[in-house]
């Protein structure tokens, strides 16, 4: 119940914040831009629309996380609004989970709005059949953002907003390279390979949430992929939030 209350409040904060509204407008503008560029794509306008639409959701969502998510907890500590909360009968884990859930919900809402707009646009182009692929692409993008939000909340609970943003961005970048890290690990000498493989498992496996190429051709992915991605996102986010809780539990608010 308490996490839901905090989540609701965080969702309210995110949606009243101009960043989220601006991001939705930017996403819609990006989709409009794809239509302006479509005639130049020599018949590949549909592909361009899907690619840019799905990439836009992912990148704009990351922008929201870096601007709003990384100061979620840090800002409350800085402004001391957290005193009013933690002096009530709520646990620190409940607080962190609520914060993560609230921002994730806001990001899902953004992804949903932009995903619907993308589908509508494709339908207008006579590519309504791409719908299932787009839905899956948006779903996976939402899972990706949920995982990155957990990282942002963790860093925000430990550090300042600027450092939190840098750490989160760093994990995002390395996470996109996790497949390459695994390849390097396989080709490297034993010791180094083990270390690299360890790092590849430590960082979020973001390529798992990427089916933009498939979606651009109107292809859906397998139920196994969707199931694995969902399970991985849930477990990774839970793990990160546990780490955040462990660190946050002993934190003093001077």
């Amino acid at each position, binding site marked *: 119940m308490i996490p839901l*209350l905090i989540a609701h409040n965080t969702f309210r904060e995110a949606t009243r914040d101009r960043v989220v509204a601006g991001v939705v407008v930017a996403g819609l503008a990006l989709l409009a831009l794809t239509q302006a560029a479509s005639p130049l794509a020599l018949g590949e306008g549909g592909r361009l629309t899907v690619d840019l639409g799905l990439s836009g959701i992912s990148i704009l969502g990351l922008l929201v996380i870096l601007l709003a998510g990384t100061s979620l907890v840090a800002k409350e500590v800085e402004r001391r609004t957290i005193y009013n*909360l933690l002096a009530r009968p709520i646990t620190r884990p409940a607080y962190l989970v609520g914060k993560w859930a609230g921002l994730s919900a806001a990001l899902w809402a953004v992804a949903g709005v932009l995903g619907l707009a993308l589908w509508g646009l494709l339908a207008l182009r006579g590519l309504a059949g791409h719908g299932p692929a787009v839905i899956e692409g948006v779903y996976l993008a939402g899972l990706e953002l949920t995982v990155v939000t957990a990282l942002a909340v963790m860093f925000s609970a430990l550090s300042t907003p600027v450092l939190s943003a840098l750490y989160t961005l760093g994990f995002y970048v390395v996470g996109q390279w996790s497949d390459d890290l695994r390849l390097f690990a396989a080709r490297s000498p034993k010791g180094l390979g083990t270390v690299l493989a360890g790092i590849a498992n430590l960082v979020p496996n973001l390529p798992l949430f990427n089916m933009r190429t498939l979606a651009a051709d109107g292809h859906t992915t397998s139920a196994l992929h969707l199931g694995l991605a969902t399970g991985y996102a849930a477990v990774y986010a839970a793990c990160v939030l546990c780490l955040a809780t462990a660190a946050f539990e002993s934190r003093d608010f*001077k």
Partner: protein
Amino acid sequence: MAVRARDLSKHYVHPWTLRVTRGLEGLDLDVRRGEVLGLLGPNGAGKTTTLKLLTGLLKPTRGNAWLMGEPVESTAARRSLGFLPEQPYFYDYLNGVEYLELAGQLSGLPSATARARARHWLGRVGLGERPRLVLRKYSKGMLQRLGLAAALVHEPGLLILDEPMSGLDPFGRRDVRDLITEQRERGVTVLFSSHILPDVEMLCDRVAIVIGGRLTRVATVGELVAGGSQAVEIRCAPGAVLEIPSHWAGRVTRTQRADESIFRVEDEAQLAEVLGWLLRAKVQVRAVTPQRPTLETLFMAAAEAERQRRTA
């Protein structure tokens, strides 16, 4: 007991130099249910540290504390707690009603009750006329009042208030005093810190003086002021040019003003002797006023005594 602390201590260790700063040392404190206890001390004495340790915002280095019988580490301890931090800040994107409703729900109230109580308390602290005003437009005094309302919305059994009069004009301070008195009459325990000594004198059943991270004294206001000897002030007409006899030096002082002369007798036992001397000198005596020692005086004396103890 509403609040119990045993050997409560907080030390800060610098991460690089490992230098230890003792924010609070060995605090033993009991606050009875239904009592109003004032926490006095100079800046940096450890008052806020004490209150934050009791509310769980700081983890003690040593010792234990209980609120309403529950250890402070547990959420149960905070169920009956209403806390007002010093210079409170709130979510500036919410309005007054929304914030109080959230505060009530987080303290365990059902949403309908929280909504009703939010409106009630918003009005009670004088903010009811504009319930939809966003908090970013609140003045400092309005934020202080809202903080009080947030501390009271779930009608707790224990109030911990850090500088509740801070930022308030005299009318606001009077309202806060009335609120605290009202809560005491309801049987609520109040523990608050303040720099405004007259308010502490007026409200508190007992006063705890914290200086340099240590609790130096806990007593009723009456007990604190009773120990001192009572001085007397004699107000006379102006122009009384009299040489104070040398054997009274240090015990009788004169202050000359344009409209009067004031003779201060430190020991009331000497009053008759001094009055006789003035009347024989044909000085026109206007008033004789006993001077009770104030909490401010005692507090300053206690602070000085502690300072001397440390340097000795």
